[in-house]
């Protein structure tokens, strides 16, 4: 598991709003676990979280820790950024396909710690955790998988 240095202050990029229905997810992130709603009835993972399982419409879903292991399904190197992100260009956004199956879960996040020109489709990556200074929230990032 990779725990990144806290982001530089002040952090002025958009952050998720924590509400009762997503609080278990952000609580788990602060404990350095990435949890995904898993259907108690059919076993499928569902990302992004929806009110019911997409496969069987069951509302019996449990926030379940996943390995954090993934591969790059696709990515982009951004050379222009909205708002505070423009100070970070070039930065990488990646969709990581979680190792957990059978329903593929594509998780969007910034891929950090790898030069943009070295990122590839299919590259092994994993979830990393980064505290946000002055904010009561931990964010997830993608990093190249440690082997």
């Amino acid at each position: 598991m990779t725990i990144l240095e806290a982001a530089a202050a002040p952090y002025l990029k958009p952050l998720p709003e924590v509400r009762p229905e997503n609080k278990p997810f952000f609580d788990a992130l602060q404990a350095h676990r990435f949890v995904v709603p898993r259907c108690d009835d059919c076993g499928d993972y569902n990302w992004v979280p929806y009110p019911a399982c997409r496969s069987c419409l069951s509302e019996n879903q449990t926030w379940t820790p996943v390995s954090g292991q993934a591969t790059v399904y696709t990515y982009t190197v951004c050379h222009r950024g909205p708002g505070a992100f423009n100070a970070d260009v070039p930065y990488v956004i990646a969709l990581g396909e979680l190792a957990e199956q059978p329903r593929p879960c594509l998780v969007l996040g910034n891929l950090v710690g790898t030069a943009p020109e070295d990122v590839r489709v299919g590259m092994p990556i994993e979830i990393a955790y980064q505290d946000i200074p002055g904010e009561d929230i931990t964010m997830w990032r993608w990093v190249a998988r440690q082997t």
Partner: protein
Amino acid sequence: MPFPKRQAAIVGVYTTKQGKLPDRTSFSLQLEAIRGALDDAGLTTADIDGLLPMSGTAHMPGTTAHQFWAEQLGERPLSLVEIGGASGQLAKAAASIAAGLTDVAVLFFGRAGARTGPGGTKAAADRAPRVADDWSFATAGGYMTSWYAMWAQRYMYEFNVTNADLAEVAVFTRYHATLNPDSVMGSRGEITVEDVLASRYVCEPLHLLDCSIDNDGGYAVVIASAERARDCRKKPVWILGGAEAYYTDFYATINDPWFPNQGKAVRKATDRAFGLAGISRDEIDVAGLYDCFTVTTIRDLEEMGFCKLGEGADYVKEGHLRLGGSMPTNTDGGLLSNSHCGDPSGMHTIEVVRQLRGECGARQVPDPRIGVSLQQGWAVHGLASTLVMAVD
């Protein structure tokens, strides 16, 4: 069964000036567009009995767009509202007209002073803003271009398509724009594949010239029953068929594969539209295909069934879409070189209507009879609709 033949027709179209319009408001552009399209049809405000507002249609807060505009347009109760994307809204309006729900409806949009691109987002001053959509791409610095870039990246990976292949789309649409005196980019002249590749990256693999422009502008379309259409000023452009299909958000929740042989929303809408119209792909004389990015046009062609999966770039290179080709497409310059005014999903239909009427001057396709417009939006091919039109 086709829609009952000649039950509905597009009778009026209008585009305001497109470009940087610092002296205009979204309201004034919308009003000008509505008045202009009614005048093109030879109708008046009192004839309007249905509204087809776009996702970004400006209205006063605290009400809906269609309720606000029903009051603005004369404080009369109106009979129809259809949302979605332009080709599908017009298809549903045609079906509603056929069914007797209304006789005349107007689709309209206008925007001034806003930007779709990343420059439209101001940096927070002293505190990180919170976004209510927990899984929003905003928290990762994503925006419209980054989604299409990720789509393009995966597509290029799976089908060995190159940046130069994508650039061919920007080249032919710019050529068309040079023949359209109203286009935003036409006066800058033609571009080459090398020009596209030399333009700066916005989000790799998309260069600046792979992206649509980002300007102010407005437009409107009036659709009417056959009975009303016969009394209108211009020759009717009949709706032969149309349909829409949609699914979720930007592929982030879509099980792979992203590029299945059977297609996704665009294929579903197009198959149904062509089935209703009772025509085949090779009968299309002129097309307007949504082209927010170069990759979008290539994928449109595959999804619509004009070519096979993975062959869209070759289809473009063979020259089918260029004026003089088998299916001239985006003859106004498209979103890449004519105008992208925020929610431009009606612009492709308007250009096809003008082509079918024979109003296109230097860029006129010789005697076209049947045309098609494809709208997509809200996601990467996530909300799609197809409209098949014809003239007598």
